[in-house]
């Protein structure tokens, strides 16, 4: 009986969701590497003293002066739905901005930003799907 319980606990621990404990604006690159391992790739970005650290599963972290400022994540499950985010952030004073002006034949992308929760989601005008989640410091 005890063994089964331990096994169940072990299984729970193994399968449990690992939440990111990055404290944006405070966590250093060394702490990030300790948490997630070494990035697959590092790329320069047009931000002074900034760069992008790229990890598996299209997860990216933007860094400035050795401090992690933003995390870019792929939405999973219900997170892919814009309604999910509108519902989750319904009490937040969100700001919606057009983010890309292209000459394309299709609708532009928008960001829905909630500073208080430290989260921005990217979606396309007229679409129900969220294409990206950006995490940042809470203000």
């Amino acid at each position: 009986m005890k063994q089964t319980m331990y096994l169940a606990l072990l299984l729970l621990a193994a399968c449990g969701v690992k939440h990111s404990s990055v404290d944006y604006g405070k966590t250093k690159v060394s702490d990030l590497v300790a948490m997630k391992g070494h990035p697959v790739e590092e790329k320069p970005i047009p931000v002074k003293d900034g760069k992008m650290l790229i990890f598996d599963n299209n997860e990216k972290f933007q860094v400035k002066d050795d401090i992690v400022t933003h995390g870019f994540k792929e939405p999973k499950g219900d997170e892919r739905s814009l309604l999910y985010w509108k519902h989750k952030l319904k009490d937040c004073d969100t700001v919606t901005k057009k983010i890309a002006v292209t000459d394309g034949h299709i609708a532009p992308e928008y960001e829905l930003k909630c500073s208080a929760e430290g989260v921005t989601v990217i979606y396309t005008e007229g679409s129900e799907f969220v294409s990206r989640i950006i995490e940042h410091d809470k203000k």
Partner: protein
Amino acid sequence: MIRNSTLFLSFIFLFSACSERSPKTLISHFEKKSETDKVLERAIANLGEGGKCLIDIFNVDTLESEVKELEQKLESSPKSVGTWKHLDLSTLPSPQSHFLKKYGKDLGDLNNPDAFDYSSCRDVPCIYNKIYGKEKDVAGYVHYLWYLRFGHMLAADNKIPVQKSKNPGEYQDKTHSFDKYLFSHKELYALWRLSHMLKAPHTTLNYLKEVQKIPRGENFETASAAACGLAYSSGYILLTDDCLSLSSDQDMGFLYQAITHELSHHIDFESGRGSKKIYRSHKDDYLELAGFFMEEYVDKDGKAQRRWAHKKDIKLVSQYAGTAPEENFAESIAFFRVEGDITKKNLTNEHYDFVSKEFYFSQSFERERIFKSWIEEYQPDILQKSFKAVIDCSKEKSSPKSVYFSPKDFSNPLLPQMLNCLGERALEMTQELKNKTMLYKPDGCRAHNHHSMEGKWNAFMKEALIKIFDKYVEDLKKDPAYLGRIKSFYDDLSDKTPAREAYVNCYGESDEPKCFSDLIRKRATEKALALNLPDDQTNELIDMYASYHSYETVKDELKKSYHDLVKSQIEGIRSEAKTLWKSCEGISHNDSETPSGSVFQIADGYMVSSFYNCLNSEAPSSIKNAVRGISVNQMKVQNAKEELILFNEVKPAFLSLLTDIYKMEREKEEKSAADLLSKEQGQLRSDILSSFHWVKNVVDNQQIMSDCKKRAYELIKLKPLFHLPKTLFSDYLEKNTCLNISTSKEFTSWLEGSKGQFSEKITSGLDEKMLIAGTNQAKACVKEFPVDSAVNKIRFRKEREACLMNKWSDLENSTLSEVLNDPLVIKFQVSSVELKSKLELNRRRLQLRLMKEYFN
């Protein structure tokens, strides 16, 4: 036992998948209604001479016959009920009644519904022709045929779906005459030709509602002048003049590529839906195939920046295809269809094969390939004519001299008169099929008349005919009765019913093409064996049968057929959608659960979670009901596989109807909210100012505004189901109800009366802040001088206490300075002396508490 059960189930499944005794399919009944879909071919008979092109039969008679043919196929019950102006919808052919029910409000001059006199019209083409100011013209038929073939409207009205002005006829801040919204005669021909060029998936888009041209001479209001077409996932395609340009040869021009490109964006949207991505082109496999990746970052102003980049060695059909994966996707698919030879050169083989397989049922459109595919397509006809030619020529005693064939073309020695006779027949067949393809095929004249193709048609036909003739001659030599025996086999070749049944029965199998091929070969074998031929001849017949009924061809045809079948049953599906909406509307609503499920979605709109979750959980069973309600000639769906196919076809149509209801209800709710606010006359502000429990902060005006709005949402009786309260009311509340609320008489008076309470709040806040600062310091001291063992506890005791005490004064000063900057302290002018004495009073008690908690 488990293994045995699994084995048993596998047998049953295999049996149901492959048994020829599977229940009959609806699609066979449905297709029997339209077996004679050969309007254009019949038109050839009336033309008499060769060298004519598709444009030569672009007339009312041809188009009218096409309409009749398609209407017969799409005729269904129940019909739409109701009226459109003077017309009783139930008396019209079903497709017309469905069209008017769906688009009747969007026809003609939307500023003035009486601008055109439709009173003499009895059908949809006539209505469109009135809009064009014409009688019995091709315009009306092209518009209506577009609907019949594609399932959405080719608009002829003066309101652009996403225009800035609310008024029809206004675009780019100008008023436009109605004729500027209509297509020219040349454009109408090209649109009709394009409707023949494209097949599924271009013709089976479920969420596209209309294709609309903006006023002639104008650019888009919302996009750069460089774009000539825009595709919206909300269901629209907009076109400027540049996307409608044509060459002097009307079978050429940018129109074909541009509209196919915009339609391909919709394929991208719709294929993306199933993959949980916005676009199919954003899936990893396509990004890898096409060579794209995303560059993204947040700029110094905190704004997200996202740009697509591509590999340096990327292969592109056009420069524009390099701007983004979605443009690459649409551009590659459009080029593939319209400029086959250029596409073959400019795409990687992998990319080329992907487009061919995924979007053109493994076809390709290089000119040589087009010729070969026509010869394959007309194979039964060629075989039968060749068969007759060999029999006739074997009896022919004299024939005019022909140099078409030479004796060495054949492996068997042929008498000169037979060679002459076959040459003459071959020439006739080659010319006849050339005339047929020039006229009947939308690519016909372009391919035949291209300078690079001179002589190629004849060469390909000759090559094919030599093989066929040679084989028949050989067979005839071996067995004079052979040709007579296989005649029935050839007669049966064009019957597509067994192939359709095989496709249905293999649907969803792990290897559909193999299952299909096995069934088709099985049937061919049964038929061929009955002829008692030698093995090699039997095998040849089987191969021929299987190659004629290829999996890709049958799949292509059935995709469109099932789409048409569902289109013909739209009223029953609409009724199921309405029933589901009503049942979910009736439950008690709240927005506390997380919205979950993705069967039904609402684009970038909103819906309370109880409603959303109800629709999502119930939609699958409603779709199943809709499928079971489908009937053709009183026959309902009986085949389990077919039910699955129909489920997948009905689903998008059902969800699209549900979305229409959602949009309508959302609009109604918006109107109710506006109505409510226009009548409230300041009552809401009075109610908010009647008590102040909602105030969380008295000095931050932004916070007061936010709290005021929250209180207002509580008080407003209308609890929206399809909007967030802030979307409907925030603007009004900011400008009216909550405007300057903190300077109102009631608010100021309440604040003055509450001064004592606020002072107490400030001092308790000071204590809390000091506790937090002290706790952090105590933790830092423990880190430096640990208490992890009894020895360390004693060894560092003095250092730990000193670490806390020595910092205490700094902690008090920083806490005090923070509190003195608190807007509440400033507002109520609380003195620093008063706060300092409070700190002194609590100092020792707090220090002892922290030491006891963290140092022991």
